[in-house]
């Protein structure tokens, strides 16, 4: 099979934030310094080279961008300052867009106006849900005047309805995300003969890497170890919050105590999310490590949305404890107007999707190796 060159593709990746692909002279310094490069594999040079010559077919089936954890050593050592680390990041953005069959991801990655528009549109839908129906939201308050004197969140936003909304959202988003992941599997594995056995055993890879991001720990610098630690705390906070909202919404939305166990878990999650998102933003502003030196607008948006979600959640909780009824309801709506669009946009179409793609890539890589070993 001959490789053909799609120079438009190269321009595409550059638009997504790739480093200077024209600067690369294929010296291989990136591979030489990469702590994750194994044996004779030209990692990450192979990906950089494919991008440089526009070998789209080779990139779309590649798992390598997901195997890079952006320690940044390659960018530091690059003699032509071509920034291979950020190029790998751009490749992940391009792949995220490529897996997405709706095409929305590509739009949003290419224009921050489209992405902001999408966020606002989802926020508008959330707002409308609280303004329009008569048995729910602000119009429900007219039939429950007692809810104006004291906070009665379940009268304002019935837990049953919210839970149904939660589940619908979870279903839609996971359908989108899983269908995208299925495309990833197809693109990565097409044309390969893989026996059933080879599909099964490496499942542990998926679980381990999904829970621990263990490969990141192999990055050989202190910044990376700190970033990994912060990331895993962030994941724990995110996961906790996710479980609270999706599984334990009833107790989580209890109205009277700050010391209920769901509240305590909520405090932990909020603290972690807030600390992580603020320090990430601070790192990006200060360009603290190589990984933070270049920020695509999607790199800003995700921690900003996380921070806003946490902050509005805290305000909501305080107002509720102070028993200020109307302000609590308003804060509740604002909180959802941030959190829901964040999830709706980021989970299937944006940066959040790496949560599934990275462990999946580790798994598929292991499947490939096993299939090759058995063949």
């Amino acid at each position: 099979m001959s490789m053909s060159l799609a120079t438009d593709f190269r321009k595409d990746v550059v638009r997504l934030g790739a480093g200077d692909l024209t600067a690369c002279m294929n010296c291989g310094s990136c591979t030489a310094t990469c702590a994750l490069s194994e044996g004779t594999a030209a990692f990450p040079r192979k990906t950089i080279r494919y991008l440089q010559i526009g070998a789209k077919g080779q990139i779309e089936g590649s798992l390598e961008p997901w195997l890079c954890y952006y320690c940044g050593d390659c960018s530091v050592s690059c003699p032509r300052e071509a920034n291979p680390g950020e190029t790998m990041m751009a490749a992940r953005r391009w792949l995220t867009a490529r897996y997405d069959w709706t095409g929305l991801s590509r739009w949003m990655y290419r224009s921050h106006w489209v992405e902001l528009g999408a966020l606002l549109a989802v926020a508008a839908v959330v707002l409308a849900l609280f303004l329009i129906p008569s048995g729910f939201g602000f119009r429900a308050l007219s039939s429950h005047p007692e809810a104006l004197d004291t906070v009665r969140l379940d009268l304002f936003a019935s837990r049953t309805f919210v839970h149904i909304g939660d589940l619908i959202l979870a279903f839609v988003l996971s359908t989108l995300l899983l269908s995208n992941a299925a495309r990833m599997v197809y693109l990565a594995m097409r044309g390969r003969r893989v026996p059933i056995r080879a599909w099964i055993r490496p499942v542990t890879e998926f679980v381990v890497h999904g829970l621990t991001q263990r490969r990141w720990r192999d990055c050989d610098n202190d910044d990376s170890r700190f970033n990994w630690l912060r990331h895993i705390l962030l994941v724990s906070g995110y996961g906790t919050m996710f479980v609270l909202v999706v599984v334990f919404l009833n107790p989580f939305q209890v109205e009277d105590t700050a010391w209920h166990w769901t509240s305590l878990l909520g405090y932990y999650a909020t603290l972690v999310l807030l600390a992580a998102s603020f320090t990430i933003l601070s790192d990006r502003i200060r360009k603290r490590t190589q990984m933070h030196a270049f920020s695509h607008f999607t790199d800003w948006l995700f921690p900003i949305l996380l921070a806003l979600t946490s902050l509005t959640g805290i305000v909501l909780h305080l107002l509720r404890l102070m028993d200020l009824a109307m302000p609590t309801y308003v804060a509740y709506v604002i909180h959802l107007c941030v959190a829901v669009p964040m999830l709706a946009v980021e989970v299937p179409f944006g940066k959040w999707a790496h949560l599934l793609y990275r462990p999946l890539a580790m798994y598929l890589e292991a499947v490939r190796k096993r299939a090759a070993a058995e063949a």
Partner: protein
Amino acid sequence: MTETKRRVGVYVCHCGGNISDVIDVQKVVDGVANIEDVVVARREMFMCSDPGQNLIAEDIAAHNLDRVVVAACSPSLHEATFRGTLKRSGLNPYLYEHVNIREQASWCHKDDPEGGTRKATRLVAAGIAKARNLVPLDPVRVPVTRAVAVVGGGIAGLRSAIDLAKSSFEVHVIERAADLGGHLARPGRVYPTDEPAQDLLTGLLAQARSLPGLTLHTETELVASTGYLGNFRLTLQGPSGEPRELTVGSIVLATGFEHYQPSLGELGFGMSDRVVTLPDFIERLDPRGPTGGQIVKDGKPVQRVVFIHCVGSRQLEGVHVPPEGGRLYEHCSRVCCTTALFASIELARKFPQVDIFDVYQDIRTYGRGQEDIYEAAARAGVTFFRVAGDAPPTVEIDASGAITVRLVDLLTFNEPIEMPVDLVVLVTGMIPRDITPLIEMFKLPRSPDGFLQEVHPKLRPVEVCVDGLFIAGACQAPMDVAEAAASASAASAKAACLLGGDVISLDPFVASIQAELCDGCGLCLAECVYVKALTRAEGETVPVVNTALCKGCGMCAAVCPHEAITVRGWEIKQYDAMVDAIVATGGHP
């Protein structure tokens, strides 16, 4: 053997340690001190230093020495030094014998100091034997015509001519073509200054025309040459048809190069008007060129251009096929990498929408600032592909005229690459120009690549082994404009040094004939390889040596049955004495 008593001084040099670390120099001194005629024998740390030379001068005065032997380094390094010492001390400088005990003893016998010391002793004894037989000689003196002919009117020829004319020599530029400038006269820009080549030429020509004593002969060829260093009599064939005579003291050859012309079908050449050579492409890029600076396909600007390097350079047997009766060009043409990259930058600048591919074996941007051109080409968007020398790319042109280049890319992990392109630029190399008449006229040496060969690439870079001839520019090797100009200035400086005085002094080591021993057999005449060095006039018995043309090779002396002809400074009886001395000297016990 020698009838007259000689007074020989012998000096053995330590050369810092280069010699004395291996050779026991005191043993050498002791071993030769008692040889007949040796008056003084000494050793010294550095004979070539002022104290060393002063030692010789003092001994000459004090001991009335009439022959000197120094055993030291190679004669090519310091023979002239010690001849000068003798001259300053009032002795004929040719009464000196230099013995090399560094390259010939200490350096090659490090593992056997004793044997090395014995060998050094024998060599010095042989040197003494020769010295005792040396006779005073005078340098050959040749009168000089203060005029230079420059063959070729390109950048090198013009540069050389201008330099010489500025030093008030009479200069004649002989250009075969109707116009001056050679390759520089074509449209296109030159690196690293990024100026139109023609502007450069215009400046040079204006300068050349303004100089008195500089004559530009166009449509003129050098058809014959007689004479020698200092007095070449040339015959020029001009446009009028009348041959014309010209006498010059020296000749600068600046005959330049030719662009390699691919054979029909080689990488698609000749099969499509969109497969062009680099020189033609550069011409098309220029607004003054044949296409007014437009690079089009079917009337529309091209989208994809590929440059293929090393076409007609670095060819390999079994991979490349030479044309009928032709040869392979195995050399690297050096200049084409930078030229191609420079052109691709210009292409990218003028037509930003064009995708540019560059297929190379090695990028050799060797000169100052040229690596920057390589990097600038990459940053201008040129994508590079590397092929192995024995796996050149292929160019396929289908019935519709679509061009596809296929290659195995070493940078992409030996994967096959297929590129549909609109235009193929063959980066053709520089090959030697066919100057057979000149080569035969002067018996010029060529290196295996076919270019003219200098005497020594470092020590005598613009001289050829024909005295009075110099080479300038790309007739010697592939060079860019700047290098050709530098080489031309070097050649003109050499010519100016040669012709600076009224006479030229040459080494006296030339053939000489003892007429009374010669029976006119003529064997020597048949053996002499130098044009007109040894001649015999009609009706004469004894040949005559032209001392300006004789190189002292000794071929004539070797065949003479009567030892009538011999080479001064290297006479047979001197050799006999040396051999006797080597046999007689068993070294020390």
